[in-house]
Structure formats: C-alpha cells, structure tokens
C-alpha cells in the first residue's frame, strides 16, 4: 500500500469528507512525526509503535573500493520499535500462529 492508496481507503470510509482534506490529514500526520524526530523528540503511538532518533558515533570507516580510511562524522538515525499489540497481531495473522508470541515471551 502506498500513500495514495491509504488516502483512497480512508476516503471510502469517510464519504462525508473531501479527498483533499484526507490528503492533508495524512500529510499532516507524517509531517508532525518527521518534525518531531528532526527536533530530537520521540513519537509514541501506543499499540502501533514508537519512533525515536538514535545517535551513531563518529567512526573511521573504509572506502571498500580503495581501502582508504575515511572519517565518518556522528550521525542521527530514525528508529522504529513495533508496539506490543501490532507485534502480536502480526503473529496471529494468516501466516503466523498465536502460540509463537507466547513462546517468544517465555
């Protein structure tokens, strides 16, 4: 599913709304999450998951082609941790089985 398909599905569920409003809603949500992460904030959506920013230390890497050492500066990378409910439903779905989650926890 891509963003435009998500918008279409939401439009079908909400026939009283204009499609352009649904587009703005979807864009606003992802824009808010991105802005929060860019500020260094965490975004916690219970049941779905949490977005956070992890710091990667500066390191000396190697250019794989030339073997030359290159300095890589400190970086920040976005990270997503799946929420408990979503993780459980993934394993109760058609190809997963419910006892897997119980075994993973044990």
């Amino acid at each position, binding site marked *: *599913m*891509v*963003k435009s398909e*998500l918008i279409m*599905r*939401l439009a079908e*569920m*909400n026939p009283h*709304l204009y499609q352009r*409003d*649904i587009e*703005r*809603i*979807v864009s*606003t*949500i*992802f*824009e*808010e*999450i*991105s802005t*929060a*992460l*860019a*500020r*260094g*904030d*965490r*975004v*916690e*959506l*219970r*049941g*779905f*998951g949490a*977005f956070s*920013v992890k710091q990667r230390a500066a390191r000396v890497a190697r250019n794989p082609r030339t073997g030359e050492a290159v300095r890589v500066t*400190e*970086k*920040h*990378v*976005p*990270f*997503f941790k*799946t929420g408990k409910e*979503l*993780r459980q*439903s*993934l*394993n109760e*779905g*058609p*190809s*997963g089985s419910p*006892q*897997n*989650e119980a*075994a*993973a926890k*044990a």
Partner: protein
Amino acid sequence: MAGNTVTRAQLSEAVYQEVGLSRNESADLVESVLREIGESLVKGETVKISSFGSFYVREKGRRIGRNPKTGEEVPILPRRVLVFRPSHVLKDRINAETSQDRE
C-alpha cells in the same frame, strides 16, 4: 535535543489545526490512519509513505536462543517482525536539524 514525547494527542491537535474538523473527528482520523497501516501490514503488505519511509514484514525462521539468566537453550519459533526503513528525505532531515541544534 529537546527529548519530549509526541503522542496521538499532538498528532490529533495538528490535524485539528490544519483541517478544521472537530477535535473528536481529528482524533478518529489519526486512529484510522494507524489502523489501516496496521491492517495492511498484518495482511503481509508493504506500506510505503513517500518522503517518510516504508514498513514491511519480515519472516524470521526458527532458531535456538538462550535464556540469558539460566543459560538454558530455548527454541525461538518462526515469527513475523515489522521493519521500518526510513526514507532518505527523513534521514537527511534528522541529520540536518539535529546537528544544527548542537552547534
């Protein structure tokens, strides 16, 4: 870095400010977006949001794990995990803005 936590409440507020629906309906729509993404993933579909990132499901095989406390071997059954792959746009934004903060 600010270190605050953004939740559904702030996302709903942003939708409310941006679109002019009621607060309740804004909250319902935020919920619908998350639910649609979740349902799509449970079906095994990949969800791609341009300039944000993509979510996909990875099938993990059976392997032998170990209880770190007792050292006992335990089988880890095959399971499905969700992976988020951030887009370049998002990665670049996070690096541009967070590093400016510290300067």
